[in-house]
């Protein structure tokens, strides 16, 4: 069966309650992903604008982030992207059990991601770093956590420079929390969606001739992964 007759066959299947059919659902999904990218686009654009304005403090603040944890999460998400893709492939070949296992693994990995994030966030809070407000920094020169004031004192900044520096540090963490927070929200949503899909699959809902929602769910998860792949270097690596 060629790809196009396959699509036709799917379109005609009564399970398709949405009138646009398989192709319509896919088009809708891509449009939706575009709106998601725009949502993050605003944050990225703002980040770059302020990055240019507050180069020094952004650099200093970025050192406080834990590259190991960030890296770990990157690996976690990449693996989860693979498992969700395998899950889709499995259902397309009619292997429902296998597909459910893959979905389960993906969900577990998403959970892992959130746990790591939880540790990262609480470490920040512990050092009195909140959105828009940071009192601690990592001092590159002596490799230790010091208060922002100490940091400023060590570098002999004038009062004006110091005020600017503080604003920059605060803004960096604003962006850090906003962007990873919104992303985290997407992880939770994605997890929920995949979980519902897995439940429905258990109920026999999807099969090798009807798997549009599985495909769209997987696409969504890839997006969540993709956005992280941009966030990770932006915050953790580039200085």
């Amino acid at each position, binding site marked *: 069966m060629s790809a196009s007759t396959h699509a036709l066959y799917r379109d005609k299947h009564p399970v398709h309650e949405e009138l646009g059919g398989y192709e319509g659902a896919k088009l809708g999904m891509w449009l939706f992903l575009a709106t998601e990218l725009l949502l993050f686009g605003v944050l990225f654009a703002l980040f770059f604008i302020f990055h240019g304005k507050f180069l020094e403090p952004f650099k200093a603040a970025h050192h406080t982030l834990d590259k190991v944890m960030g890296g770990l999460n990157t690996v976690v998400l990449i693996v989860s992207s693979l498992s969700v893709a395998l899950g889709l492939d499995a259902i397309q070949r009619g292997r429902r059990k296998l597909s459910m296992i893959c979905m389960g693994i993906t969900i577990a990995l998403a959970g892992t991601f959130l746990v790591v994030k939880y540790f990262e966030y609480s470490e920040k809070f512990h050092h009195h770093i*909140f959105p828009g407000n940071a009192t601690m920094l990592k001092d590159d020169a002596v490799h230790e956590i010091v208060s922002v004031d100490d940091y400023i004192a060590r570098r002999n900044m004038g009062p004006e420079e110091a005020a600017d520096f503080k604003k920059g540090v605060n*803004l960096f963490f604003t962006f850090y929390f906003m962007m990873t927070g919104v992303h985290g929200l997407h992880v939770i949503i994605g997890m929920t969606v995949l979980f519902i899909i897995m439940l429905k699959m258990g109920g026999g809902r999807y099969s090798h001739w009807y798997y549009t929602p599985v495909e769209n769910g997987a696409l969504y998860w890839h997006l969540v992964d993709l956005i992280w792949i941009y966030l990770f270097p932006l915050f953790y690596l580039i200085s």
Partner: protein
Amino acid sequence: MSHADASVSYLQEGRSVWGWLSTTDHKKIGIMYLYTILTFFILAGAAALLVRLELIAPGPTIVDQQVYNILMTFHGAAMVFLFIVPGIPATLGNILLPMMIGAKDVAFPRLNLMSYYVYLVGAMIALISLLSPADTGWTFYAPYSLKSGSLVIWLTLGAFVMGFASIMTGFNFIVTIHRMRCPGLTWNKLPLFIWAMYATSILQVLATPVVGMTLVMLIMERVLDIGIFNPAKGGDPILFESFFWFYSHPVVYIMILPGFGIIGEILPVFSRRPIFGYKAVAYSSLAIALVSFIVWGHHMFVSGMSDWSRWVFSFLTFFVAVPTAIKIFNWIMTLWKGSIHFEAPMLYALGFVFMFSIAGLTGIHLAVLVTDVQLHDTYFVVAHFHYTMQGGTVVALFAGLHYWFPMFTGRRYNEKMAFWGWLMLFIGFNLTFFPQFFLGMEGMPRRYFDYLPQFQTWHAISTVGSWLNGGSYIFILGHLLYAAFRGEKAEQNPYQSLSLEWQTTAPPPTTNFAHTPTFPESIYDYGTMDDGHAGGHSQRKAG
């Protein structure tokens, strides 16, 4: 759902309240939207009349400054977010789009219903702000919106939620147009209204997320004091303006493009002429949509921009004028030598062309840097955007409501009553807003509660006009509401239109058509005047 009997109209099926509230029929959803937005239109209009009454004389007359700001903000925000943005797409668009392309429904009927409820929830959230009403103006500019003691967050949160409804409608339409056109309907035969809806949908999908995120950040800013827009914390309020207008300029086209679409449908029918320059009219909608993304800066000429970027934005703005001018030109060419039938929809359409031309011409004054610096934030701007939004979009909506009325309801409105309503609107509207051009040129700033005595004459004329204007809406809507239930029965296609949506029973069955229709060769082929009769397929001129 699809088992409906084709001889039973959609109005007869599922008539209970629950039947309506849980319907996935695009026509019923459109009608629910229609009643809802018109309710907000009347509320926001009432606020406007109070604002105008306050301005009848200098000094405090009926309300104090604070209340004035609140009324003005409510009026502007409700008109924009509750009424005109969902406006035509969610009402006439919802009802007509599937019918015009010969489809049973939109691509995602349940999403369509959901968009209605999302809109409703957003509207309710926005109305909560009335407990301590916002006084910032509908643009929520930082830093004032960060400081104002009122419930601005609720208003912005409401706008944010309603944004989702708008996105849902937009992408439902895009998918529907791509996937569900009936046999024979190629892109180059697409009705002009559909082209307009297509362009609008693209704007809805691409612009709304940006303002959504911007409003979220404004909310965060107030709740967490994060500092992105607050200069005291290193932020930049101008960024708010940039992102706000990146959406809100295209929004102007979300407001007006659907109106263009309606006019494009009505003019050929009532002048019995093929539309002049079909392709130019169709593609100019897309062109407008795309250009509108790169001109937002013209709202910020005076809020601190580098000289060269002002220059660029001013220049780019002229590009929007080109496709718009193409449309006006083509409409006039369509009328030229046509045999014009002056029935209500046509009167509204002609009113639209007249008033929108004034809006367009005065818009040029605002796009030109030198004159804008002079006119910025004066009553000239107020007059200009009311000519666009009310003289343009609202009048187009009313043109459409009259035109498709027999199809939606199966009944006729009274032609005489419709005429008087139109006349009242036309006179009242121009009396209200034309004087404001003079006010603006003489330097009367907008959003002011008080003014110098020298401005009083124009203000008084404008206020008197606003009563006639407001009265006309009550009259017109009252008449239509009455006719919807008591009007005489309509014949099937009273205007002998060739468009597909008329080729079924009126009102249509739930599935729109008894059988999947085939699209006619052309729907604008009214022949020429020499033909003497409608629907000649032989002498198609200009295409």
